[in-house]
C-alpha cells in the first residue's frame, strides 16, 4: 500500500465485513483513487477522513457499485461487489451524500419502497428502524414537509430496515442538530458494539470521528495516508512525550535546555513546550530547582485527532483541510 502508514498490522482480523483492496479510479485522465486498501471488521466503526475532494465519496460509491471499478476489488461479507453485486449489496445499508427520496410519498411509503426490494425481511424490522431514528410521530407525513434533519433520520432508517451487516454512511450527520448528532453517535456505537454491525463512516467533522470511531483511515489526494486506532492517532509522530512547562524565569530555563541540548518551543510568556524522555524530564526539574527557578506547572500534552490528521496529511505531502 503505497504511501500508507500502517500503525498496527496485528489489528487485522480474519474475514473482514468490508475489504477494499488496491482500489483505483480515474475520471478521464484524472486519477481520483490510487491503490486504496482498508478493511472494516465486524462490529467496528471505521472513519474515513479526508479533505474535500480527497476521494471519500468516490471510495464509498465504488464500494456500493454505483461507480465502475477500474482496478482492485471490493468485497462485502466475502462477496465481490463487481462480480456478485446482488449478494454483496444485500448486506449493506447506506447513505451516499444526502439521502434523497421521493417527495410525493410519505416517510413510511418511502421506506416501503425499499422494504419491497428485499425478499427476506419483515415489517417489525421496518418499525424498529422508524422507532430507532425517532420518526414514529411523523412517519406518515409526506417527506416534502420534513426538515433536513428528519430526512437524514429517514435516510438512516432506510439504511437499517433490512438488518444489514455493514453500514456505509457518507457525511450522515449533515442537517442534524447537536442533540441529534449525539443521539446518532450513541446509536451507531450501540449498533456496532452491541449488534455487531460494522460501520464505515466518512466525515469532514474531525470531532465527530474522534469520539465515535474505533479506527480512522485518513485519505488525501486519492491515497490512504494512514489507518490508526484513536489511541495511535493521538500519539502519532511522537517518539518522545510532550510536556508543557510554566516557570517564573524563562532566561534561566532556556539556558538549562540549551545546556542539556534539548529542543524547546516558547509557546507563551514563561511557557515552554518540550519533548523529552521521562528520566530527562526529572533531571531538568532538578536543575531548575537548583538554579532557583520556580516551576509553576509541568504537564504532559495530549495530541488531538486534528493535530494527528494535519501531521499525517502534511507528512504525506498533501494539502491541509
Amino acid at each position, binding site marked *: 500500500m503505497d504511501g500508507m502508514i500502517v500503525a498496527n498490522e496485528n489489528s487485522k482480523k480474519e474475514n473482514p465485513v468490508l475489504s477494499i483492496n488496491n482500489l483505483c479510479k480515474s475520471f478521464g485522465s484524472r486519477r481520483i483513487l490510487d491503490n486504496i486498501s482498508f478493511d472494516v471488521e465486524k462490529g467496528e466503526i471505521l472513519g474515513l477522513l479526508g479533505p474535500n475532494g480527497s476521494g471519500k465519496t468516490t471510495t464509498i460509491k465504488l464500494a456500493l457499485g454505483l461507480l465502475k471499478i477500474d482496478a482492485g476489488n471490493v468485497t462485502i461479507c466475502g462477496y465481490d461487489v463487481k462480480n456478485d453485486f446482488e*449478494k454483496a449489496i444485500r448486506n449493506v445499508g447506506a447513505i451516499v451524500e444526502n439521502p*434523497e427520496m*421521493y417527495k410525493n410519498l410519505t416517510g413510511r411509503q418511502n421506506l416501503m419502497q425499499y422494504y419491497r426490494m428485499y425478499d427476506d425481511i419483515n415489517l417489525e424490522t421496518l418499525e424498529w428502524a422508524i422507532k430507532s431514528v425517532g420518526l414514529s410521530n411523523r412517519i406518515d407525513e409526506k417527506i416534502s414537509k420534513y426538515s433536513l434533519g428528519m430526512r437524514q433520520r429517514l435516510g438512516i432508517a432506510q439504511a437499517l430496515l433490512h438488518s444489514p451487516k455493514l453500514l456505509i454512511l457518507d457525511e450522515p450527520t449533515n442537517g442534524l442538530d447537536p442533540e441529534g448528532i449525539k443521539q446518532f453517535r450513541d446509536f451507531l456505537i450501540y449498533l456496532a458494539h452491541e449488534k455487531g454491525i460494522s460501520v464505515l463512516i466518512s466525515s469532514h467533522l474531525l470531532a465527530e470521528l474522534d469520539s465515535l470511531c474505533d479506527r480512522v483511515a485518513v485519505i488525501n489526494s486519492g491515497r490512504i495516508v494512514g489507518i490508526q486506532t484513536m489511541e495511535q492517532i493521538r500519539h502519532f509522530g511522537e517518539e518522545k512525550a510532550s510536556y508543557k512547562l510554566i516557570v517564573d524565569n524563562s532566561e534561566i530555563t532556556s539556558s538549562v535546555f540549551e545546556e542539556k541540548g534539548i529542543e524547546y518551543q516558547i509557546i507563551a510568556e514563561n511557557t515552554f513546550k518540550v519533548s523529552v524522555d521521562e528520566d530527562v524530564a526529572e533531571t531538568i526539574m532538578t536543575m531548575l530547582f537548583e538554579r532557583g527557578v520556580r516551576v509553576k506547572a509541568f504537564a504532559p500534552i495530549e495530541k488531538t485527532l486534528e493535530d494527528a490528521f494535519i501531521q499525517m496529511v502534511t507528512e504525506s505531502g498533501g494539502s491541509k483541510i
Partner: protein
Amino acid sequence: MKSFSNLVKNELIKIFAQTAYKVFIIIMVVLFMFVPLLSKGLTALVNGLSGFFDIEDDIAYYEEMVDDYNDGLERDYYEITLKTLEFFQSNGLDYESWQYSTMYGDYLYFCLSEHIYKCLRDGTVTLEEAKESLFDSCLDDNVTELDYGSAYELLSTERKEYESLIIDSEIADYYEKIYNDLLETKKAYDSYLLDLKANKLFNEEYKYEIFSYERALESYDDTLEILKFIKDNSIDYNSWKYHSWAVAQSMVLEMLSYNGPVSLQEFSTNSIYYEEYDDYEDYIEQWETTLNDEREAVMVLKYSVLNNIPTQSVQESSSKATYNSTLISNIELIMYFAVVLAGLIVANEFSSGSARLLFIRPHSRNKILLSKYVSILIVVFVLNILNAFISFGFTVMINGIGDIFAPNLVVSDGIVKESSAFLVSLGTIVLTNMRLLLAVSLAFMMSALCKKGALGIIVGILFDVFLSLIYSSIMLVSDLAFLKFTPIPYYMMEIFVSSKVEYVISQAYMNNVIMLSNTSQYQIASQLNVWAGLANFAFWFVICLLAIFVPFKKQEIKN
C-alpha cells in the same frame, strides 16, 4: 418473480403519487370525452353550414340576380331558376325533401330548355345568342331550326308531366318508376351482352368488354334487388339503405362505362398509361382487379341492405367509424402522456438524487430499469382500457349505439362474410399502439442514457410528429415505389385494419358527400404487408431495448 412484481409495484406507486401525473390523466380523460364531442361539433358545424344554404337563401339570391338584369337571356335564366325554386317552395318541398333531391335538376333542365326553344321558335333569340348564353347546355345539337317548335312542344309536355310527378307522387311511386326504368335498361344491356358473346366467337378483342359487362350486369341484378327491397319496404329516402343502393347503382354505371381496357397500341403511346403501370399485363391485371373490387362492393351493399348491417361509408354518422377514429385520436393523447412518463421516469431518479439509494439494492440495474419500463406499459395498457370504455360511452351518447356492434362485411371466396367489429376495434388499438411503443421506447432510452427528462420527451414527441408529417406527405403519393421497402409507410399500422370494400364504397360515395374516410390509408395498406410492418416494428423495438439496457448496465451513477 415476486421481487420483480414488487419493483413494478414500487414504480406504479411513484407514478400515481405524482400530482402532475394525476392532473395529466384527468386532463386526458376529459380530452377523451372531448374528442367525440369535438367530432360531433364539427359534424354539426358542417350540417349547419349546409343548412345555411336553404331554399329561402337561394330564392333571395336569385331575386337579386333578376333585379340586376333588366332584360336579356341572363335575366330569363335567373328568372326561370327563381320560379323553379319558388315552385318547390310553394309545394312545401325544401332541400331535405326527396322530390327536390331527385327531381329538381331534371325539372329545371326541362324549364330552361322549354324556354330557349320557345324563344328560338318565336325568333326572339338567334341560335348564336343562345349558344353564348347560360342556356347553352340546354341546346341539343341534333335539333335544327325546323325542329324548334316540335322540340318546344315535347319539352313542354315533359315538363308538365314532371311537374305533376313532383307534386302528386309518393316516394313509392318514385321507387316504382326508377325500378321499372332500370329494369328496362337492364334488358337492353342483357341483350347487348348476348350480342357481344355471339361476336366473341369471331373476335377475341371483345373478351375484355364481355368480362366488363358480365361483372356490371351481375352487379346490376344486385342493385335491382336492393332497389326492390327498398321499394317493397318503403325505405326512407336518404336513409343509409337508400344510399347503399345509390352507391351500388353509381358503381354499376361506372362499370358499364368501362367496356374494356385500352388497346396495347394505345397503352404504349399514351403516357397516362405506361407511366402508371409496369407493363400492359400489369394494366390489364389492375383493370380486372378494379372491376372485381367494385363487383364485391356491390355484393356487400346488397348483403348489407338485406341483412340490415350498414356499411360505414354510406352513413352520415357511423357510430363504429366514430368509435374507431376516437380510439385512434385518444391513443395519440395516451402516447404524449406515456412519452412524458418515459422521459421522466429514469431521469427524475438522477436529477433528484434518489438513484443513489435506488441502485444500492439487491437487484441488478437492468432489472430495476425493466421494472420502470414495464410500469409504463402497464399505465399505457390501463389507459387504453379506459380509452376503450370512455370512447365507447361518449360515442354512444353522441351518436347512439348505431352500427357500433354491427359486424364488418368482407368478401371471401366470392361470398360475403361477417367479421367481428370487436376484433377490428381491438386490431385498431393494438396496431395504433405500435408507434406509441416505439415513441415511448425512444423517450425511455434518452431518459436512461442521457438522464435528461426533457431530451427524452422532445425526442419521443419529435419522433411522432416527424414521422406523421412524412407519413402525411406519402399519402399524397399513390405509388409507394421504393418507399415500401423503408419503415416509413409502416408508421401507422392501423391502416391494416382499413377495409377494401369500405374504400371502394367510399370512393363511389365521395361523388356526392364530403367525408373523411380511410381512403388513402387503404391505398397505402394495399401496397404493404402487415407482417413486414410488424417485423419492422419488432426490429426497431429490439434495437431500442438493446440501446437502453446494454449501456445502462455499465453506466456510472455520479450524481
